[in-house]
């Protein structure tokens, strides 16, 4: 399969001062992440809060707020071109046109003083050679296909006249307005209730079937959603990818203790005391990451080596990578 996006050794660090010693400290929010997105797939990125999912996605679009944060090194190839080398005007041609981004926050993702039409048309007229009237027609069609009834009338409405779920549909229409090839969805359904969540995600699938959109990067902390909607999944922890594989494979035979923990922690698996499993401890602060494996102080299967050396990401089975000392290169197959 062809790669649409290839992230190579991406390092995005944040720089802040320590409150006590006033020394500069470096927070490695994304530390040496390599990731491929193939054409015609939905790639899930899963992890707890602070694991670096969003920063990875924002790095792709060069949205890291400088000067506190910086893409220190790495390359991101989109259709063969290193887009991190693009700046200013060149970069704007990619944003929205080639790669679109939608957010978790549905209540403030639309401008309260403009109508929906004006906002969708803005994206179209920025990137495509269309007049406002043509753009308005396209927008109405787009809203209709997002499942908004009476789209031709409702497009003249203002954001506050829509519910949260509707707004996320509108945000989705806006993101897709310039026909991008890759969509990055950063926890697009976290703010919505479960029934709406399902509707929106089903919409994702149907869009991917019908439109020019070829690939989606779907960021979430919900493994249940990933198992239903994604083709492949990357599990992130403390700024590093811990495991990548196809979804069925990951659900059936997770390798990394963290992935196992996440799976057991989903509400459907209960232990013998009829309690939901939880991973012990908390997500470590990026300021005080353990030496060795970043998960070692919460892991239940540690060996001495785990506290000293960081394991590399190795391919245990075809297309199934894991970063854990429990598995060795020679274990393959």
């Amino acid at each position: 399969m062809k790669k649409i996006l290839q992230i190579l050794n991406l390092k995005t660090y944040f720089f802040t001062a320590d409150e006590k010693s006033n020394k500069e400290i470096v927070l490695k929010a994304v530390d040496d992440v390599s990731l491929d997105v193939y054409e015609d797939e939905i790639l899930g990125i899963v992890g707890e809060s602070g694991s670096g999912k969003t920063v990875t996605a924002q790095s792709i679009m060069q949205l890291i707020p400088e000067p506190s944060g910086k893409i220190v090194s790495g390359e991101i190839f989109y259709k063969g071109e290193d887009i991190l080398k693009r700046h200013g005007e060149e970069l704007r041609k990619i944003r929205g046109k080639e790669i679109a981004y939608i957010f978790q926050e549905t209540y403030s993702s639309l401008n309260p003083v403009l109508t929906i039409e004006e906002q969708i048309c803005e994206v179209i007229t920025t990137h495509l050679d269309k007049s406002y009237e043509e753009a308005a027609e396209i927008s109405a069609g787009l809203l209709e296909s997002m499942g908004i009834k009476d789209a031709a009338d409702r497009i003249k409405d203002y954001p506050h006249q829509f519910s949260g779920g509707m707004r996320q549909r509108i945000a989705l229409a806006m993101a897709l307005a310039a026909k991008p090839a890759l969509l990055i969805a950063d926890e697009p359904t976290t703010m919505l209730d479960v029934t709406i969540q399902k509707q929106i995600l089903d919409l994702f699938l149907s869009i991917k079937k019908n439109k020019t959109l070829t690939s989606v990067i779907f960021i979430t902390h919900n493994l249940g959603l990933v198992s239903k909607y994604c083709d492949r999944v990357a599990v992130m922890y403390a700024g590093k990818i811990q495991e990548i594989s196809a979804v069925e494979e990951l659900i059936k035979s997770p390798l990394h203790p963290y992935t196992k923990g996440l799976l057991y922690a989903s509400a459907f698996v209960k232990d013998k005391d009829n309690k939901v499993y939880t991973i012990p401890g908390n997500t470590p602060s990026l300021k005080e990451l353990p030496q060795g494996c970043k998960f070692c102080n919460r892991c239940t299967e540690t060996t001495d080596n785990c506290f000293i050396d960081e394991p590399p990401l190795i391919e245990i089975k075809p297309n199934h990578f894991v970063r854990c000392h429990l598995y060795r290169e020679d274990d393959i197959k």
Partner: protein
Amino acid sequence: MMKQQSNINSLFHKRWLKFRLHKRGYYSLYITVILYALSFFLPLLVNKDPLLVRYDGNYYFPVFKYYSATTFNVGSNGEANYRKLKQSFKVKNNDDFVLMPFYPYGPTENLLDELNIIPPTKPSAVNWFGTDDRGRDVFARVLYGFNVSVSFGLLVTFFSFLLGTIAGALSGFYGGKTDMFFQRAVEVWAALPFLYLIIILSSIITPGFSLLTFILVLLNWVGITLYVRGEVLREKSKEYVFASYVSGSSKFRIITKHILPNSISPIVTFAPFAVVGNIALLVSLDFLGFGLQPPTASWGQLIQQGMSYPTLDRWWLIIIPLVFQFATLILIVFIGEGFRDAFDSKQYSRLK
């Protein structure tokens, strides 16, 4: 039809509806707008020049055009005194006539040769509010002064807010070093001793209306920058700005289409109060003699004339302009209150 429906739901329309609920503010706006619009037609209502003169079978329009006194065969130089001309026509009792405006005295004309006593004269049936110490009609001067004062207040406010908004928006949007530079510059600028500077400037150059406006705009614009900057800083961190950013919109578009329309609240709510401040400032500068130069109609000058006399014998020169100033300012303050309530995001005021 559909367009109208969308207007009903726009945020600004909602605020307008809310403003209309604020009766005092709404009617104040209504009255102020009508009075200010009328004040532009003052030359047709309160003027020494007649609207129409018929003389020897010809028609003349002195309001719009200058005719020398010889045209009407009275005097040899300058313009005819049309009030006297009117009386002389009456005596002749032929077809000639003079159609004077409603109140036949101009704001800058001195009436020395019509007054029997040395001006200033007290209010009378002829000169309703009396005359000032140069023998000019106070009623006309006070009305023309309304136009001058409100125009001045509006212009200074508009241009200083324009400048301040641009500066504040750039400062807030770009942040970092730009912000740092702008803010320090604003602080230095704001620390200039404002009144002294105007006094020094106007003693060097005698400022006309536009020059005084220009000077005050230059000194006044810093005030609003801080509010706009704060508002822009808040708005730019919102998701919809980010959303527009990631969909490839240019920075100019983001500022003008997304951030500024959402940062309008402080601009609109401060504007009426700024107008009030600028009118009061003009009156005080005129009072001190550093504002608009005579013979421009001005409230401050009248008050100064009234106060320069040791006793309160010239009471009408003090009270009448003050009453006009007070009425104007209170109308605008009411408008400001209405705007403030309309832009308040709380639906109902707690103190009702």
